[in-house]
């Protein structure tokens, strides 16, 4: 049990961060507004979680424009995908082991 808990990544403790990673793992790119609607988060809250994931190099950020409006696109990095998958595996183990 101890071992599985160690495999849980502390960075994915937050519901919003889990949500961001879930959306990015099945989509090539997702923009800020879509993430916001999907996760029901406020601008500031979402931005700070995105920042954390970016600092850990789990996601890539690409700033662009649609007309004059900024359109920031997010995508997952190879490292982020690896970390998120092992986090999911650890969650699964916790459920299975103790049944």
């Amino acid at each position: 049990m101890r071992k599985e808990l160690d495999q849980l990544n502390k960075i994915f403790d937050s519901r919003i961060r889990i949500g961001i990673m879930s959306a990015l793992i099945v989509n090539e790119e997702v923009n800020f507004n879509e993430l916001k609607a999907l996760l029901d988060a406020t601008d500031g809250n979402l931005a700070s979680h995105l920042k954390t994931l970016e600092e850990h190099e789990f996601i890539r950020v690409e700033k662009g424009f649609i007309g004059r409006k900024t359109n920031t696109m997010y995508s997952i990095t190879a490292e982020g995908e690896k970390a998120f998958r092992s986090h999911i595996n650890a969650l699964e183990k916790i459920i299975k082991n103790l049944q």
Partner: protein
Amino acid sequence: MNERQQESLEVLTEIRSIMHKSSRFLSLSGWSGIWAGITALVASGVAYGWLTDQSAFVTNAGVDVMPNGQFSEAAAMWSERLLILAVVTFVVALLGALFFTWRKNKKAGEATFTGAARKLAVSMMIPMGAAACFILFFILNHHFAYIVPASLVFYGLTLINSSKYTFSDIRYLGLSEVIIGCIALFIPDMGLYLWALGFGIMHIVYGTIMWFKYDRKVNRL
């Protein structure tokens, strides 16, 4: 199940739900299908009326060519009428489908034009564009017998292709359209009935199933 497990299970369920919601356009309304079906039935009724008017033409399911190599007047008139009917039917069905989907999203408070909606639109436009080329060619060259099978098969393949971006159920609607289209190829005399079955009845049946399965909850909100 202890607290730790309960928590892990909830997180996994949420991950699944977000993966599903973010990659598929799940706001297609069942009414969109029902509307498309009604439109198709009206259109086939109009075509049926014209056919009984021109009973001499019905026996000739293919090209109606005069001895001198020119297309007959009847065939030329048909080609013009069919083209107008096809365009009007498509536009009316599409506008209705968009309206009902937009209305459902407004009720549920969700955005209509998401990334998944874009993917769905693109995945539909490519095979539908090819279908339009084929059908236009068949109409202009008076190969009337191929219009029904081509429209059913292309549309069916379009739905199968698009089913990965919306409810997976439309895959089965697509399969039924392809099967009906292939049958229509072999019995051109039944063409109009099979077209009405594929685009009319099947849309209404699937639209109703989808409404009961997915929309009812939203309406109760």
